[in-house]
């Protein structure tokens, strides 16, 4: 969620968006995601594991571009991945996120059906896809 656009929404639209956000947040998948996200953010060990995997992946991409990936590098990446996959907090967070996204897509389908145009596509930032 980078580069947020500061446009003052018409009050009726802002109110409708807030009501929709409240209802989306109250749906079971999104409520579960918000709880899982909170758990993840409170768990410093889980955050460190995920940050470790991200850093390892980035380092590996750089080494791959230079043609310098060794067996030790691969073992390090595998270990970082396994540590993340075995973490129940991260696993729950990812599962909950996937279900929340599926639920959100259902809501967007409904809005898009009513508008006869894909609302999310209209809201997409230039350069995204």
């Amino acid at each position, binding site marked *: 969620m980078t580069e*947020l656009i500061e446009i003052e929404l018409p009050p*009726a639209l802002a109110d*409708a968006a807030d009501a929709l956000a409240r209802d989306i947040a109250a749906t079971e998948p999104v409520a579960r995601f*918000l709880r899982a996200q909170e758990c993840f953010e409170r768990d410093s060990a889980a955050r460190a594991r995920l940050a470790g995997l991200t850093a390892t992946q980035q380092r590996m991409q750089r080494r791959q571009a230079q043609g310098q990936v060794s067996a030790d590098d691969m073992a390090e990446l595998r270990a970082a991945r396994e540590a993340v996959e075995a973490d129940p907090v991260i696993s729950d967070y990812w599962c909950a996120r996937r279900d929340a996204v599926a639920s959100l*897509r259902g809501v967007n389908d409904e809005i898009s059906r009513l508008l006869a145009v894909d609302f999310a*596509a*209209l809201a997409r930032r230039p350069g995204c896809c």
Partner: protein
Amino acid sequence: MAATPITLRSPAATDAATAFASALSATPEWREWEEAAMRLRADPSAQRASAAYDERRQALRIKLMLQAASAEEKADLERLERALFAQPSVAAYTKAEADLKALCRATADRLSRAIGLDYAASCATGCCG
């Protein structure tokens, strides 16, 4: 990770989605976009310019992909593109669409902040999804 069964459309979210779609379609930006689209469709000069540009671009598609188009061919395509965007109804539609997209992005940002998920990216059907 097994998929969790989810309800895509809760009644509350559907009601809120209906109110939201109604509020969005009542904004000046939405109305201006719809009117601009109607004017564009009804403008024979713009339709001819659009057809001429599309036809030329299609004819050059492979050459452009292979970066094999000649300078004359590229210049011709650019001339047709300029002629298309010089049409008042095309320019009006382009501006109306940009204004509507900016409003939709701002609205989606408001939703994203409230639900902890990037609305537009989560609902995208392209690589962002």
